[in-house]
């Protein structure tokens, strides 16, 4: 459909001279807006009529309108005179057609014919809309715009097209200039809706006038950004339409060309710029936004959409529910002259925002979550903007602890997570504890210990404290102090779902004594800069009011945002009712939307009435119960299988449980469909938020997990516990993932261990500790942790092989901490068992370990005896790796005796074996020792060569202990720069 030929009005340059009253009328109209006088239709009409009468070719309009037929006739005011352009052309009034800027038969826009720019191409893709709002905190209450309502209105306006995949909407949750710039560049929007406060400055003394916009600075205060700086942001973008929903954004001064926000941005080459000539009411701005975007979403041209949007605000206060204070119909129904304020500057009305010829891809509904330790949080959390910034700023300054309380589903975890992300960005190391019963929060302590162990000095101090026999509380306090120091004072701890370990009765004390100690220790350390964030249903006893934030009802806009994000089947009045009934509870809304999806109007009303009567904290459960009630047997069977896992698993993890018989389920009322495609069933559960999905960053696979709330509900409401055989199959699947190297992360190792123990697969659990857990803990130097927590249960194992190995490991840990007598006792016990059961490989290892005790005591002959015995066994059974280690150890005996040649011989043999089997760690140790022998023989070049090689290998695979040894070696050798020194030598040698 071709557009009708526009009717172009070119006001004569001397219009103001020929019609002197116009200038005065325009000025008094402008000052009426500025002084908040009531601008009425009659004022606008008088202005518009005067303008019309001043035009020479007015009579031609009728013919043009006739030619346009049923289409709207675009009227373009064309001028390059600043003085002409400052006039309120939008009020143009035709004696027959009425207001030309408002009547549906027309559209009214402006053009400056002297500005010629190359317009961006019109791409064939979904329309990208950036809604950017700025609301600095230091505005007075009067100046505060209701940006939330505006965001809600825009989201509602675009929701349908967004879900259909025709439009992509982005709403950054802060209003900083940097964020705006970044959003423009990364998101590359076609339409930018910039909303906030605008200003216009005339500097008489400098002979200039310019517009500006108030952004937020880093801590949320106002930052005035001039039109020049704002224009620069649009370099390298493809913005087709910019809407400046800000006061005075289209204002110009008659003495200077191209001044003011709109004119400057138009000149910069944005095809269409909409601005406001004077100050707009907040309420009018919101209605305007909604109408404009709704119409643009229907693919109309910009000028036509604008005309409709002007029309939508002819009675802005009436439509927004009127003035609270005044029932005066004249005031309520007045236009306040708002509709004529939006002004469009357009280079070419035919230029569209996008070419709509693409095939839209409907948005996928299920939202991904990220795992924060064990805590699952939505990947995109929008809203709670004000709270977020307020607490972010406080946590950045002197505020060090924060307890967020509220009933489940209000978004406590999401808010805490956002705050934590902020701290992380500021360089804080964060540790997150989930206190939900299905998680073992002590695993996080282990992670923290591993982190502390990276700092050898600090860890040694901590071990010293441990040996002093201080009580748990004091130990925790020291531990956190060391950890805080390790991160240079930048440590943040997050305890989620504290109510799981709080007494249900007031004053809600923490019932777990260990946790209480840790919390107390953490709280004390907040005085030294540790950041502590907690979430709970209840406040803790004696918790300071200043560090407590009871999370209230979110604003309606946040609610709409979530509905959009999740694609929930709710909008309009139904959404509003849900918001009011559910007190803004996000989780309850999710379940409510699903529960009512297939209800009749009557059923829904009854359900809402029931919810309304229920206590706040049981509404989520009620809605959830309804959703579960509507699931069919196949879905319940899958939920039941998910109960067998305490961790997220890929689809295969659920399929292996298919063989398990499903018990009769009292919660499932409908007949089973049987033989369901698991994936399809899973998608349905995801769609109703009963299941959460994650992308495992390690395996890059999608994994699934029961939503925590759903797990609790199922277990509390008579869902059968998973059978032992199910738990076993589940644990074996996790073990399969580990052993097949599908997932070998530390978290996975720990959850597999827990699953094996919970399924009574004790032996496999013990094996897992020996094969997977001891190694990293030893590498980290956590000998105490191994001796206290991990090894003692294994030393009691029924399986003799495991028992022998565990005793040997205990001996080895004592060896590490220098308690040789105790070490020898354990090693001998281990040896006895291994010899008894004929565990040759274990025997070889233990003999080797025993030799190290004698070596340390300087009894080289005995040490050598044991090593030779060990070597004989290893050679007999073909244990190459053990042989390599033993040969290396033998060399050290000869070295200690000063027999360097023999030492070197053994090292060469060891090296050959390690190269053969690819034992990189062993190879490093051997080469390291070879270097020392070369040094003894004054073969410096060979020594350096050996060490540089070690450095290259250790650096590549990040062998911490080897790198550490190299660093202290550099010190001993007088090589400057520690590891840097080795790096330099490596470079020099590579160049040769």
């Amino acid at each position: 459909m071709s557009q009708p030929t526009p009717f172009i009005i070119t006001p004569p340059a001397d219009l103001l001279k020929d019609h002197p009253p116009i200038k005065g009328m325009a000025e008094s109209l402008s000052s009426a807006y500025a002084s908040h006088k009531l601008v009425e239709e009659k004022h606008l009409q008088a202005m518009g009529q005067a303008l019309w009468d001043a035009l020479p070719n007015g009579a031609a309009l009728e013919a043009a309108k006739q030619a346009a037929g049923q289409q709207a006739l675009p009227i373009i005011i064309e001028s390059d005179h600043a003085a002409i352009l400052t006039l309120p052309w939008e009020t143009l009034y035709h004696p027959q057609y009425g207001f030309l800027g408002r009547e549906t038969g027309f559209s009214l826009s402006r053009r400056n014919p002297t500005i010629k720019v190359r317009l961006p191409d019109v791409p064939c893709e979904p329309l990208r809309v950036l809604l950017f709002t700025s609301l600095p905190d230091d505005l007075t209450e009067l100046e505060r715009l209701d940006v939330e309502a505006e965001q809600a209105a825009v989201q509602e306006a675009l929701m349908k097209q967004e879900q259909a995949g025709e439009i992509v909407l982005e709403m950054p949750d802060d209003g900083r200039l940097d964020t705006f710039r970044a959003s423009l560049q990364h998101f590359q929007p076609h339409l930018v809706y910039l909303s906030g406060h605008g200003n216009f400055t005339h500097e008489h003394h400098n002979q200039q006038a310019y517009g500006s916009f108030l952004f937020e600075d880093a801590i949320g205060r106002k930052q005035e950004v001039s039109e020049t700086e704002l224009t620069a942001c649009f370099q390298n973008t493809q913005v087709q339409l910019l809407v400046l929903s800000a006061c005075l954004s289209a204002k110009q001064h008659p003495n200077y060309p191209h001044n003011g926000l709109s004119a400057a941005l138009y000149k910069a080459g944005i095809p269409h710029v909409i601005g406001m000539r004077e100050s707009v009411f907040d309420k009018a701005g919101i209605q305007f936004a909604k109408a404009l975007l709704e119409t643009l979403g229907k693919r109309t041209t910009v000028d036509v959409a604008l005309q409709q949007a002007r029309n939508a605000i002819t009675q802005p206060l009436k439509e927004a529910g009127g003035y609270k204070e005044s029932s005066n119909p004249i005031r309520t129904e007045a236009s306040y002259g708002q509709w004529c304020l939006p002004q469009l500057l357009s280079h070419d009305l035919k230029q569209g925002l996008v070419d709509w010829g693409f095939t839209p891809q409907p948005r996928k509904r299920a939202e991904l979550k990220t795992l924060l330790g064990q805590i699952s949080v939505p990947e995109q959390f929008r809203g709670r903007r004000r709270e977020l910034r307020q607490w972010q700023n406080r946590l950045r300054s002197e505020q060090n602890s924060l307890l967020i309380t509220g009933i489940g589903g209000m978004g406590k975890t999401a808010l805490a997570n956002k705050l934590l992300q902020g701290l992380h960005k500021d360089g804080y190391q964060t540790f997150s504890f989930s206190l939900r019963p299905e998680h073992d929060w002590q695993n996080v302590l282990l992670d923290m210990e591993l982190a502390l162990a990276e700092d050898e000095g600090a860890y040694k101090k901590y071990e010293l404290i441990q040996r002093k026999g201080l009580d748990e509380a004091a130990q925790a306090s020291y531990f956190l102090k060391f950890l805080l120091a390790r991160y240079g004072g930048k440590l943040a701890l997050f305890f989620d779902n504290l109510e799981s370990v709080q007494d249900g009765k007031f004053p809600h004390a923490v019932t777990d004594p260990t946790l209480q100690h840790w919390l107390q220790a953490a709280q004390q350390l907040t005085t030294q800069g540790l950041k502590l964030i907690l979430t709970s249903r209840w406040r803790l006893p004696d918790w300071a009011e200043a560090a407590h934030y009871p999370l209230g009802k979110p604003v309606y806009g946040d609610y709409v945002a979530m509905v959009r994000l999740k694609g929930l089947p709710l909008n309009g009045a139904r959404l509003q009712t849900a918001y009011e009934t559910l007190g803004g509870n996000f989780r309850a809304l999710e379940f409510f939307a699903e529960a009512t999806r297939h209800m009749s109007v009557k059923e829904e009303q009854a359900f809402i009435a029931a919810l309304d009567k229920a206590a706040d904290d049981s509404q989520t459960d009620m809605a959830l119960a309804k959703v579960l009630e509507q699931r069919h047997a196949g879905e319940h069977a899958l939920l039941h299988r998910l109960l067998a896992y305490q961790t997220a698993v890929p689809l295969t993890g659920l399929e292996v449980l298919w063989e398990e018989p499903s018990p009769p389920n009292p919660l499932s009322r409908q007949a089973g469909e049987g033989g369901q495609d698991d994936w399809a069933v899973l998608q349905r559960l995801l769609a109703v938020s009963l299941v959460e999905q994650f992308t495992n960053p390690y395996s890059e696979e999608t994994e699934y997990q029961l939503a925590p709330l759903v797990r609790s509900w199922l277990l509390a409401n008579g869902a059968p516990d998973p059978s032992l055989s199910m738990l076993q199959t589940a644990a074996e699947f996790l073990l399969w993932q580990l052993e097949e190297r599908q997932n070998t992360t530390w978290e996975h190792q720990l959850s597999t261990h827990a699953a094996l123990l919970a399924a009574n697969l004790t032996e496999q659990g013990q094996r897992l500790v020996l094969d997977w857990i001891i190694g990293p803990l030893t590498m980290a130097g956590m000998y105490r942790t191994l001796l206290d927590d991990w090894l003692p249960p294994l030393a009691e194992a029924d399986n003799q092989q495991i028992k022998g190995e565990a005793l040997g490991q205990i001996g080895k840990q004592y060896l590490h901490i220098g308690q040789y007598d105790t070490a020898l006792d354990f090693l001998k016990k281990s040896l006895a068992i291994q010899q008894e059961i004929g565990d040759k490989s274990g025997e070889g290892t233990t003999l080797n370990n025993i030799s190290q005790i004698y070596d340390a005591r300087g009894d080289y002959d005995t040490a050598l005896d044991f090593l030779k015995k060990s070597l004989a066994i290893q050679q007999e059974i073909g244990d190459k790796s053990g042989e390599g280690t033993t040969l290396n150890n033998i060399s050290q005996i000869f070295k200690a005796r000063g027999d360097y040649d023999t030492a070197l011989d053994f090292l060469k043999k060891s090296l050959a074996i390690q190269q053969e089997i690819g034992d990189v760690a062993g190879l490093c140790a051997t080469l390291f020792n070879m270097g020392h022998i070369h040094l003894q023989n004054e073969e410096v070049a060979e020594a350096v060569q050996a060490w540089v090689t070690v450095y290259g290998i250790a650096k590549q695979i990040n062998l911490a202990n080897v790198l550490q040894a190299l660093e202290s070696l550099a010190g001993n050798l007088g090589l400057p720069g520690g590891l840097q020194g080795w790096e330099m030598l490596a470079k020099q040698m590579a160049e040769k």
Partner: protein
Amino acid sequence: MGQSTRRITHCGQCGKSFSYRYDMGRIPEGVTNFPLSCPFCSTRQVVPLTAVRKVDLLRDGTKQEIVVLEVPENPVGVVKEGGE
């Protein structure tokens, strides 16, 4: 080392399929099979790898033909006869 491929793999014993990440770094020199076990029936089996000829450019500008092992598109595990 470290390169991995994900494939839907079929068990040579029970016939079920599962998603599996092949870590080619686990294959020693000279071996052309990838060992794995089935998550459903625990049967140990091997997936025969495909030898693919490729031409590699050398630094001196000459070309040399090399053989690279790859996991086939829809791999099926092979269970050894009489194996445990």
